[in-house]
């Protein structure tokens, strides 16, 4: 670590400055993304709610019965909303630096702050949408989450994973536009095996083992375990996902540090 020359600010005050910067960036991001016209900030969580609701409604109307006697609407919504978090963060990652490059003019704003604020905003929006749906389920179908803490943990791990991947993509997009082109395709193709729309216990043992190497699968299972409790068997490994989150975030942050030297501000 480089010994800082000049006035030594304590780490704590640095941290507080950073949180303030991130808070301000979140407010700004909200303004730039949604503005104050028509519904304004409401779109923030209305958007994932609408998408999740639409997907759920389609499958509810088609009326496929699900193994384990699960209600199709809740199942698809509970699968789609965490997936929306993942997709929203990863898909917006290539545009993250380009869109906010001018902010780097300010000394205290770093690339990491920009990315983190965007992701936290996304997380808050999707979290609100999920909370809204849970209230809706509870009020209409009387399905209250068995362990809300596990749902929150699952969403937090999902956020951590998406954040790490997004940092890597953002760093890569500084060097080449390839990421911008490929990311959407990759997230679209990933729908089938992120674990959003299947449960691990549906699969034969061999498949289960293969599928459980994918970290996002654990997050979805965790969220479902939080909602359904012991109604359906779920399998997840929190240390495994935490390992993925740590590794991805480390690589992503290191990549960002490397990439920002190539940024022209």
């Amino acid at each position, binding site marked *: *670590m480089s010994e*800082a*020359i*000049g*006035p*030594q*600010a304590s*780490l704590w*005050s*640095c*941290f507080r*400055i*950073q949180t303030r*910067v991130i808070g301000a960036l979140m407010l700004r991001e909200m303004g730039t993304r949604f503005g104050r016209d028509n519904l304004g900030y409401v779109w923030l969580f209305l958007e994932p709610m609408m998408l999740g609701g639409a997907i759920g409604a389609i499958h509810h109307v088609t009326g496929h*019965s*699900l*193994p*384990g*006697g699960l209600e199709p609407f809740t199942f698809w919504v509970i699968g789609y909303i965490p997936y929306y978090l993942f997709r929203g963060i990863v898909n917006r990652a290539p545009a993250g630096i380009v869109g906010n490059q001018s902010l*780097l*003019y300010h*000394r*205290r704003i*770093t690339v*990491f*702050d920009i990315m983190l604020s965007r992701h936290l905003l996304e997380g808050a929006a999707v979290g609100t949408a999920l909370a809204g749906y849970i209230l809706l389920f509870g009020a209409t179908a009387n399905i209250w989450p068995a362990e809300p803490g596990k749902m929150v943990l699952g969403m937090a791990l999902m956020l951590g994973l998406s954040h790490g991947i997004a940092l890597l993509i953002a760093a890569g997009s500084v060097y080449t536009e390839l990421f911008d082109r490929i990311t959407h395709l990759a997230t679209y193709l990933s729908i089938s095996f992120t674990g959003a729309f299947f449960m691990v216990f*549906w*699969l*034969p*043992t*061999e498949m289960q083992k293969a599928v459980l190497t994918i970290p996002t699968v654990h997050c979805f299972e965790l969220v479902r375990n939080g909602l359904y409790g012991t109604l359906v068997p779920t399998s997840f490994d929190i240390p495994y996902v935490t*390992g993925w989150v*740590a*590794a991805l*975030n*480390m690589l992503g*942050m*290191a990549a960002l*540090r490397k990439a920002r030297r190539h940024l*022209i*501000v």
Partner: protein
Amino acid sequence: MTIWTKRSQPTRLPEAAIDPAGWSGPVPMPGLLVRARRFARRNAFKLMVLLPTLLAAIYLFGIAAPQFETEARFLVRGRSSGGGGGAGALAEMAQGSGFKPASEDAMGVRDYLESHDAVAALRQRVPVIEIFRRPEADALARLWWSDPTAERLLDYFKRMASAEYDTTSGITTLRVRSFRSEDSRLIAQNLLGLSEELVNRLNLRMQEDGLRVARDDVARAETRLKTIQLEVGRFRERERSVDPTRSAGLTLENIGKLEGALAQARADLAEAQRFSRPDSPSLLPLRNKVAALTGQVVEERHRLGSTSEGVSQQVGEFERLSVERELALSQLASANASLERARADAQRQQIFLLRVVEPNLAEYARYPKATLTTLYIFICLSVLYGLAWLLIAGMREHAS
């Protein structure tokens, strides 16, 4: 686009601290805490990553006692019919995707093997605590308490023994680790024995449940039959007739015969009266016969219909009793049949435990996996260190 550069800090130290000759004054030796902090900051990687890894490696390669693992595999078979109702959708899905649903019996055995019940039962057969506190066990890996509570022992036991159920093959794998290979095998064998006993208990319970209802039915039918038989006996004693229906029939037959004879006698009398005078002595015996027969018929009829002798009443009661006896007999027969069926069902539904792989005697201590664990610890700590470094460096950039 303008390029923004950091405005560099003044490189000179503040004027006050420098004496005219350009030397700084005597700097006091910093305190121990400050020096320790400075040391920690300069050797952060060594302290946070290399030192713990080194300690772990010393423990794993030098101190840790070898642990021997034994493995056994078994199948739980039987009970082919699945449940109805709630599992319908799942079973449908399972059939659609071509694999059979998990057997709840095998799951039950697996859950039992990792339960306090199994540990308690094992403790009565094998000196579990002694086994996990062998003198060759190292202080860290052995069971820490000489008299552990059931919960602590269960936690430790779960770490040393595991049972896994494979849904595709239906085989349950039991793995036991301990500090001697004989101990591992002993525990595994006893666990297998315990699961066999569990399966037998389940069987017994299932049979009992299935047969109890049928047995109760049979007993109820038998008592009913007995009471009715007793009643019939008492009726016979009271009425002094073995079978009133038949005796009534006999009486009726008797009457019929008498009436036939009476009609014949009357015809004979009428015929004789044509040829002789009414006071002819040859008519007398015929007249007497008719009179006697008439008297006999009247008497018999009277006996059949009278309330005091009560043949018809006897018949009524006897008919009721015999209908009841018929009913009781058929009930007993059907109860017996269902008991037989229940017994056959119980036989068919029996589950049993098939040993596929007997517990082996390990020759090579597979645990602890020293190299892998050391590597794992090193990688984990490095990642954590990198993460912390990056986060702190990122925070430091916000210093004003």
